[in-house]
């Protein structure tokens, strides 16, 4: 199953038969005080630089989250979308927990955006899915609902199923729904890695859909987080993750993504890996 996302100039195809698509996570002020300051002060040059850095590191989609406390998030979303579009035609993933912000962004976005996110909560389904249908976007769907964030696999499957059904009622095709089965810190629950990996595999096998995951939660509370994130990413990709939300400006992350492509026979003569290496270590030439 393929999910297509686009800007007015460029289309990206996400699929199990495609190389992994990295959705850049860096334009998100949560835990990034410099970016939060830049957004607060309308310093879009900083945001544009973040966009370019990520594109250079191989991101094919850029996440855009401008949730800064006290700011007019809808206006900021619109301004950020324009600013980013000035420097790159990479398709964008509009990320907000506030549907009004998503609406404002979609109104000005040219192309088929990815919306982040809907989940199994009744209110969310009611607010977000009609927007997805109206603007004909793709959408990230989190496997959580009014009862909370499940740790087991069957509940995740049931929530995914519910979201597909609700979406179908509005004519949203299944391939436009990208499931995020939510990976939580293994430091707080040593079974959460297994739970996320099993969920990825079972959701892939049962629904065939694309899946994303925010891969850095997994390492919270443990030492040497970078290696943990890379190992988890690789295992998750084997189990059906096709478009992680991650940060390939970190070389090891980029390397992990490229190597999973190579090991899956998706990198002819290892050329993508080699050219990324040269790009990252120019002095070694």
């Amino acid at each position, binding site marked *: 199953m393929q999910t297509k996302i686009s800007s007015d100039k460029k289309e990206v195809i996400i699929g199990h038969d495609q190389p992994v698509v990295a959705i850049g996570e860096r334009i998100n002020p949560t835990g990034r005080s410099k970016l939060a300051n830049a957004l607060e002060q309308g310093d879009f040059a900083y945001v544009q630089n973040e966009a370019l850095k990520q594109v250079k590191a191989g991101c094919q989609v850029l996440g855009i989250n401008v949730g800064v406390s006290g700011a007019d998030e809808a206006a900021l979303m619109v301004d950020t979308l324009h600013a980013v579009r000035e420097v790159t035609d990479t398709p964008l993933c509009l990320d907000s927990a506030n549907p009004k912000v998503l609406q404002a962004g979609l109104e000005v976005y040219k192309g088929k955006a990815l919306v982040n996110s809907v989940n199994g909560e009744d209110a969310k389904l009611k607010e977000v899915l009609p927007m997805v249908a109206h603007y004909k976007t793709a959408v990230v769907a989190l496997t*959580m609902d009014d009862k909370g964030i499940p740790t087991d696999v069957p509940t995740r499957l049931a929530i995914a199923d519910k979201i597909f059904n609700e979406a179908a009622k509005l004519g949203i095709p299944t391939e436009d729904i990208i499931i995020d089965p939510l990976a939580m810190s293994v430091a707080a629950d040593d079974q959460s890695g297994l739970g996320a990996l099993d969920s990825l595999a079972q959701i892939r096998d049962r629904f065939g859909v694309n899946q994303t995951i925010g891969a850095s939660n997994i390492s919270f509370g443990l030492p040497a987080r970078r290696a943990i994130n890379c190992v988890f990413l690789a295992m998750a990709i084997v189990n059906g993750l096709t478009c992680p939300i991650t940060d390939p400006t970190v070389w090891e992350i980029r390397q992990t993504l490229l190597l999973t492509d190579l090991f899956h026979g998706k990198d002819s003569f290892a050329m993508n890996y080699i050219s990324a290496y040269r790009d990252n270590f120019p002095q070694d030439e």
Partner: protein
Amino acid sequence: MENLEAIKEAVNKGKRKEIAGLVQTALDNGTEPKVIINNYMIEAMKEVGARFEAKKIFVPEMMMAALTMQTGLDVIKPLLEKSGKNVEKLGIVVMGTVFGDLHDIGKNLAILMLESAGFEVHNIGENVPAATFVEKATELNADIVGLSSLLTTGDPHVKETVAAIKNSPLGDKVKVMCGGAAVTEKFAVGECGADGHAVDAIAGVKLAQKFVGVG
């Protein structure tokens, strides 16, 4: 004495299998439950907190220590109930995740650490409306209310909840502390008027101790 030091060591190192036997022996030897808890278990957790702060140990080790202490407390509790005696609590804390947010891991970790420090903690769950925070804090006669918020869209709810508590008859009798990835010191204290902000579970314990005038 040796046995009591072993209790402290067991909590410190998270030896869950050994703790029940050690506590039972101490009780059989006539050690006061209060002494076991305050002088050895809570002392051990103080050391655990300090090592976590110094990045010498990590979240799972901290959790194992806290769970070991709880296993030990399970041996003591029936005895306390039978004698009708209660171990004095540092204070009563009501903890919840703000409205619109379902995250529970960080909050539950903070609860575990507060309990291990000797607080009586009431977990009022996730997606908690401001009015429920006030209601529960009033009903439970709380000294402290802890808010967790992991989504930036939770900001208005943090603000609303802090205001609801401060404007209620509880007023300044109740201290409000905030934590979670979405809240900063500047926002929680500066903009919302909370009494404090904690970056992690151990900082939360320290803040709570400050509020009740210990530690």
